[in-house]
């Protein structure tokens, strides 16, 4: 039940952020779909007991890959779908708790939240890179995308 509420609220949150980032209304459904995907995959793998880094990594790779596919189909830069779909994973809460505990002097909590922030951020970054490298390899070898041949990988 808790997961269902989190998924629904993350969906609405992503939708809200697509409006804050002034996404073209045409692309809003796809960007929101990316957010649902990243949150859903994260919750699924987190429930199976994987740690923060690995579940964020898998969630971000899957949703970034889907975003890159959207970008190719809709002929728009991938960042338009990527930026909103990171939102449910973003370590905003833990980054805030790190700094607020630092101000109040709870150093044990600082270490805990700081670790979570760093691992989440690294997981997201690693996921994005994995997806873009895989897409670059696919378009280089399988789609014979001659126009992008000079584009460096990632």
């Amino acid at each position, binding site marked *: 039940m808790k997961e269902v509420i989190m998924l629904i609220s993350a969906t609405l949150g992503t939708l*809200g952020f697509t409006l804050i980032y002034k996404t073209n209304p045409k*692309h809003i459904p796809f960007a929101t779909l990316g957010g649902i995907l990243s949150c859903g995959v994260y919750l699924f793998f987190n429930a199976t007991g994987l740690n923060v880094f690995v579940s964020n990594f898998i969630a971000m790779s899957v949703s970034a890959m889907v975003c890159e596919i959207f970008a190719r189909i809709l002929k728009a830069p991938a960042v338009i779908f990527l930026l909103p779909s*990171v939102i449910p994973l973003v370590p*905003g809460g833990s*980054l805030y708790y790190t*700094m607020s505990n630092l*101000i109040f002097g709870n150093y044990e909590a600082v270490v805990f939240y700081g670790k979570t922030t760093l691992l989440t951020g690294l997981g997201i970054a690693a996921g994005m890179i994995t997806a873009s490298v895989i897409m670059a390899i696919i378009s280089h070898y399988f789609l014979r995308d001659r126009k992008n041949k000079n584009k460096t990988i990632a």
Partner: protein
Amino acid sequence: MENKELFERIKSAESLATTENNSRSYADRVLSVALMLGESLLHCGGEINRVENTIERICRAYGAKHVEVFTITSVIIAEVRMEDNSYSSQIRRVLQSEMGTDLNLLEKLNAISRRICTESIEPERAAKLIKKAREKNSYPALLPLLGAFIAAGSFAVFFGGNLFDGLAAAIVGMLITLIDARPSFMNKMASTAICSFIGGCLAYFISYLGSHLGLSGNVDMVMIGAIMLLIPGVSFGYALRDLMFGDTLSGALKIIQAILLAAMIALGYSLAIILIGGAMI
């Protein structure tokens, strides 16, 4: 004050790029347009490697033999050399995120860059296209406000608040977004601290009202929902991504900025706790 000067500088660079003037060399005109596009991309939230690639591709489309670009979050440096060995080098100091992320503009700029690369448009005409896309902002002004309302509310629920917390966070988040349109004399750190202080006070006030009406108000949940609008979580993630993509300097700058912003938010909020929380509880 500093911001005003920077805006004037942007305007003068813009008028230089758009007016046709035969006394300037071809390399100079090409680089003006490329840097104008790169600068606009950085403003509306483009990644560093996208900016560098775009500048290089535009220069090559105009027939450049050799292009050098270096970009970090606040500066673009570029040099271009043409077939006839005429060259130009220019620097742009980029005013960071004055307009906030604008994915609609990013998409338009990307389309313009593709158009420049496929059709051969005169540099001045291309500059006018960019200027038009920048000035004609067709996005409805109320939608981002509505987005802040929805996002703050749903993140309060996401982090474990109840429906009343969500509603309170939505109202606080919308008010914070209204306040966040800061005057030009205040820098981003100070305005973020003030915003989160006001947000903290509002969150306390609304939760206090709620607890009197019999609805359980959880101040922490209200606040974390509203904070999601201010916290640079996305830029923290993107900073690590920049680091891993090889843009080490930009990544490091963004990480420092994100951590400092988070500290400012925590500072503003803890001031609210000390001043008001102590008085009410």
